[in-house]
């Protein structure tokens, strides 16, 4: 085994660069998942008349309601580690905090339209009473309107 003396020893930096870029990519994809505020486990009902989200809506509050009637908050919306609101009182307390925040942002003027848009993403298997109790809790917190989320359906729905 002989080495030619005129060949310089050169470290190959390309795989290292690849590795670094892959790591960067991994972290970017992870950051995107954290930003996601909707819960994929919720199976939404379908509706023909569901309208697309207003592009001007800035601050959206997502309330993901599972089939047990619990509100699942995303990592961004949760306060501390507690991301499950299991009864209407907890929902009301949480929404009251958000409402106070909105009023503070509006300079304390409660007559101004609130900056937040409230979207309820309720599972199709959730009983009506559970969703209604959450709506009442939001109303008691100060909100007046909400939007019920559904899968947009292009054509006529099959009636069951």
């Amino acid at each position: 085994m002989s080495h030619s003396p005129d060949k310089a020893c050169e470290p190959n930096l390309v795989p290292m660069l690849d590795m670094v870029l892959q790591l960067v990519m991994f972290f970017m994809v992870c950051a995107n998942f954290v930003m996601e505020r909707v819960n994929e486990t919720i199976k939404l009902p379908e509706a023909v008349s569901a309208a697309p989200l207003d592009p001007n809506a800035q601050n959206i509050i997502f309330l993901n309601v599972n089939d047990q009637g619990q509100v699942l908050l995303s990592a961004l919306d949760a306060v501390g580690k507690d991301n499950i609101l299991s009864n209407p009182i907890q929902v009301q307390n949480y929404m009251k905090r958000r409402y106070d925040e909105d009023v503070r942002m509006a300079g304390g003027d409660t007559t101004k339209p609130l900056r937040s848009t409230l979207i309820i993403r309720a599972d199709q298997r959730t009983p009506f009473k559970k969703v209604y109790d959450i709506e009442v809790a939001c109303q008691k917190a100060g909100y007046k309107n909400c939007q019920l989320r559904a899968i947009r359906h292009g054509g006529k729905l099959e009636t069951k």
Partner: protein
Amino acid sequence: MSKNKRKEEAPVEPDLPITPMLDMSFQLMAFFIFTFRPAPTEGQIAMSLPTSEGDKNSQTIPDPTDEKPEVFVVRVEAADNGTISRMSITQKDAVDTRADDLGADVRAYEKALRTRYNELKGDKAKAKVSLEMADNLLNEYVVQLLDLGMQAGFKNIAPAPFSKR
């Protein structure tokens, strides 16, 4: 002499490293594949939140000169599994207070609402449908009834639990 030496040197061949560039392209492609999100297919049905009982501040004094909007009350009963078992429709404050039975068919519900909407004489935009629903009715059917009501033409549809009769 030195001029001749330079002439004898082999020409320098340009070496373009394709492999790292290809790697880079694949990585960029992978990045865009991972971050690609098709246009969201989710939509919203806008609605007013229910007014809580005893909320005196939200109540306004009715103007006697105002024309009262027509209100249709649809009562939806549910089976044990949360599906629709029976529906009936009645008009609030009407002379004939008998409820029309719609059975469990949502097509009959849509037809009944459409007929009533077309027969409306006053301001159609003010007409309201109050959906009184059983506690265990699944959200799937709640949204379906809201959707069909909106397709029938009504803009103001309010879901509510059964009222005590």
